[in-house]
């Protein structure tokens, strides 16, 4: 039915008549896609048929669930900043993508999902495996589009890639009717660099830049909030130059982790609900705050009415809708973080703020004494999550790609892994999607083989997407899964303990034999029950060539502190439970 790709390439490009499905694959190749995560089914079968001829040019990974495909694509994207690509069929294939798409939307991850759809004449008839994907995903995509004719395919895909990875990145769905896939079209590909009035890159005004510089140059207690946007913009070096010149201490959002090495002298730690003590207790003491590539999520701000109470706020942000959304900006610097910093650096004076920075060091000491030392040098009977993360941080010298799931283990990892590499933190932030880690770690690992991939996961979250272990095994992807097993849905249990009078309602986990599960899937697997076994087991895991599952029995009712109880102000952060 179709000509082979070899025959195709003999025809002058402008004359190529191809099937809609081939147009899909050729368009992906034009966008330099080397990897697709997908799952076949009725409506998308023509694309899979076309893919058969292109296996040497595009690597397709058959995930074990479409949600796994989305998270793998996200992991792939987070460590490369390239667009992650998913392929799925109509109906249940498309609905299974929804969680990952929503996650990518919240965390500004560029992703293009291509879904098959019933033939166009069947649209709206409740045909077999028809779901209205476009309507369903309006709220969770940056853009989506339904293709009903083969000739629309190249342009739709070109737009999708441009939109997904320009400005503030995000997910895009192209839903293609089966008759369009089976139809034929002339194939001509042009990269898109403009879509109507869409302005991906706003530009900060000179006047606002000057106002920002004036504020920074006269600030007594300036503080910088570092967000994911710095890495998305590739502005890590400029960021470092900026803070080193201005001498401004930095607090990182969770998603900003790894943008600045954790041991940088100006790095004061993580902001927010389970962040470090200094950043939270001192935010309201700052007189000027410059927030770069972050969106003042409620997990960062606590009670917004009592946040940055003494500060003039400079907000550097690419998405105009984020300005004044949660926190009013005194000066808005619209634009890509790199562009804004490049302009701003020559305008700011060289300063250092020794007295102000000393307050952070003092707070660090308090946190170390009250929390950190008990966490990483735990003496109790049971292993604590923090000491596991600490050991892994030391043993990998902070050079791993760190992937986490959602829960207490995520917070422990965010707090105790000390990053020296960048684009190395892969975690579900905005959506907090349990089940993210295993597939995301797979995607991150195949995208970048130059560093080890650590995948921290809880016993609850692990069971949401553990089917993807198959993929790790058959692809022999060397992901190191550290399963921190506390026998509870730990984060929910912690809240029940602290805020619901210890009424543990459906948080106890009846778990399978995880080592047996790992082995059944074809992974090397081991369990650690005591502290004495921990270090050697980690060494064996790190030395192992392929994927490895290390189950570690940790303290059952351990809590993550410090904590800002929800609804409280950042400076009401608590270091230990009230007795």
């Amino acid at each position, binding site marked *: 039915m179709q000509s082979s790709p070899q025959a195709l390439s003999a025809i002058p490009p402008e004359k190529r008549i191809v099937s809609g499905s081939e147009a899909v694959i050729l368009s992906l190749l034009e966008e330099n896609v080397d990897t697709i995560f997908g799952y076949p089914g009725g409506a998308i079968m023509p694309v899979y048929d076309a893919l058969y001829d292109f296996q040497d040019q595009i690597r397709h990974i058959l995930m074990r669930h479409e949600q796994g495909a989305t998270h793998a694509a996200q992991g792939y994207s987070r460590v490369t900043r390239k667009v992650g690509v998913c392929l799925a069929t109509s109906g249940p294939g498309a609905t299974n993508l929804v969680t990952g798409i929503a996650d990518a939307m919240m965390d500004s991850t560029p992703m293009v999902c291509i879904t098959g759809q019933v033939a166009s004449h069947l649209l709206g008839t409740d045909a077999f495996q028809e779901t209205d994907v*476009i*309507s369903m995903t*309006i*709220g969770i995509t*940056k*853009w989506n*589009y339904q293709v009903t004719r083969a000739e629309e395919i190249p342009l739709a895909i070109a737009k999708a890639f441009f*939109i997904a990875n320009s400005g503030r990145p995000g997910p895009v769905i192209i839903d293609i009717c089966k008759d369009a896939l089976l139809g034929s079209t002339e194939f001509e590909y042009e990269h898109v660099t*403009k*879509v*109507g*009035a*869409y*302005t991906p890159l706003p530009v900060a005004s000179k006047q606002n830049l000057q106002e920002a510089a004036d504020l920074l140059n006269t600030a007594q207690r300036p503080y910088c909030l570092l967000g994911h946007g710095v890495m998305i913009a590739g502005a890590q070096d400029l960021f470092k130059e900026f803070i080193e010149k201005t001498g401004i201490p930095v607090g990182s959002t969770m998603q900003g982790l790894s943008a600045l090495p954790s041991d940088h002298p100006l790095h004061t730690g993580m902001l927010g609900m389970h962040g470090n003590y200094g950043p939270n207790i001192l935010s309201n003491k700052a007189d000027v705050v410059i927030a770069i590539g972050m969106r003042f999520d409620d997990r960062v701000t606590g009670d917004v009415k009592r946040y940055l109470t003494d500060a003039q706020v400079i907000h550097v942000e690419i*998405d*105009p*809708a984020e*300005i*004044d*959304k949660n926190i*009013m*900006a*005194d*000066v*808005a610097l619209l634009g890509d973080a790199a562009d804004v910093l490049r302009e701003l650096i020559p305008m700011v004076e060289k300063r250092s703020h020794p007295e102000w920075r000393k307050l952070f060091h003092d707070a660090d000491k308090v946190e170390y004494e009250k929390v950190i030392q008990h966490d990483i040098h735990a003496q109790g009977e049971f292993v604590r999550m923090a000491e596991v993360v600490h050991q892994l941080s030391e043993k990998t010298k902070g050079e791993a790609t760190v992937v986490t799931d959602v829960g207490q283990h995520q917070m422990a990892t965010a707090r105790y892994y000390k990053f020296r590499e960048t684009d190395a933190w892969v975690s579900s932030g905005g959506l907090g999607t349990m089940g993210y880690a295993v597939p995301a770690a797979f995607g991150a690992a195949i995208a970048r083989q130059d560093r080890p991939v650590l995948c921290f996961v809880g016993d609850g979250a692990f069971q949401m997407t553990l089917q993807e272990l198959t993929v790790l095994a058959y692809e022999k992807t060397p992901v190191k899964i550290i399963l921190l097993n506390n026998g509870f849905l730990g984060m929910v249990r912690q809240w029940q303990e602290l805020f619901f009078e210890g009424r543990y309602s459906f948080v106890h986990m009846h778990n399978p034999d995880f080592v047996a599960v790992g082995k059944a899937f074809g992974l090397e697997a081991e369990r650690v029950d005591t502290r004495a076994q921990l270090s050697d087991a980690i060494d064996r895991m790190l030395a192992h060539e392929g994927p490895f599952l290390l189950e570690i029995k940790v303290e059952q009712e351990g809590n993550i502190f410090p904590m800002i109880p929800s609804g409280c102000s950042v400076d009401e952060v608590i270091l230990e439970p009230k007795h």
Partner: protein
Amino acid sequence: MDFAQEFTTTLNGHQTAVAPAAAVLSEDSQSTVQMEPESFTLSIFTENRIGVLHRIITVFTRRHLSVDSFTTSETEVPGIFRFIVVLETTQVMAEKVRKQLEKIIGVIRAFALRESDVVRQELALYKVSMEKLQNGSLEKIIRDNHARVLTVESDYIMIEKTGHPGDTIDLFHKLEAFGVLGFSRSGTIAISKKPLLSPEDRLMIKGK
């Protein structure tokens, strides 16, 4: 084809015909922020109608904003549409909504206009029974209310009125005595009172 460009070109020719400028609420307007709800008219220019319709609606539904009126029509530039949405909200929310609307791919620009900055009108049609003409002077009511007769059929008369939403409802109540067989309103359309686009807005509409 660049709709936005084309749109601007046309706009420059008919500046008074489309004047969406006016009270664009600026980013640094905090000092004058109004916390009381008031009536805002959102004027939204788009590059297509069906594709963005659903996305525009979700901006309101997500925030539980109930909308008083929602209309859409093609502008004088083929392929460029205008949505007019009237709602009661605070200035802060109107501005947030405006930015979320502009974030939609396919939306060229959105403006949040205060009631005092726009002329707003709606059209209403009334189908009035012929049976109870003895109940008053229909002719006088039509004249006094600046309405007009569109058609007269054997058993009903069709009346049209343009005016403020309050006026069209007023007329409905006055006609009730005769028996209103049908009543339909268009929703509000609006146009800014400022005669010209500000230079800034003209620049923005270009979409750069």
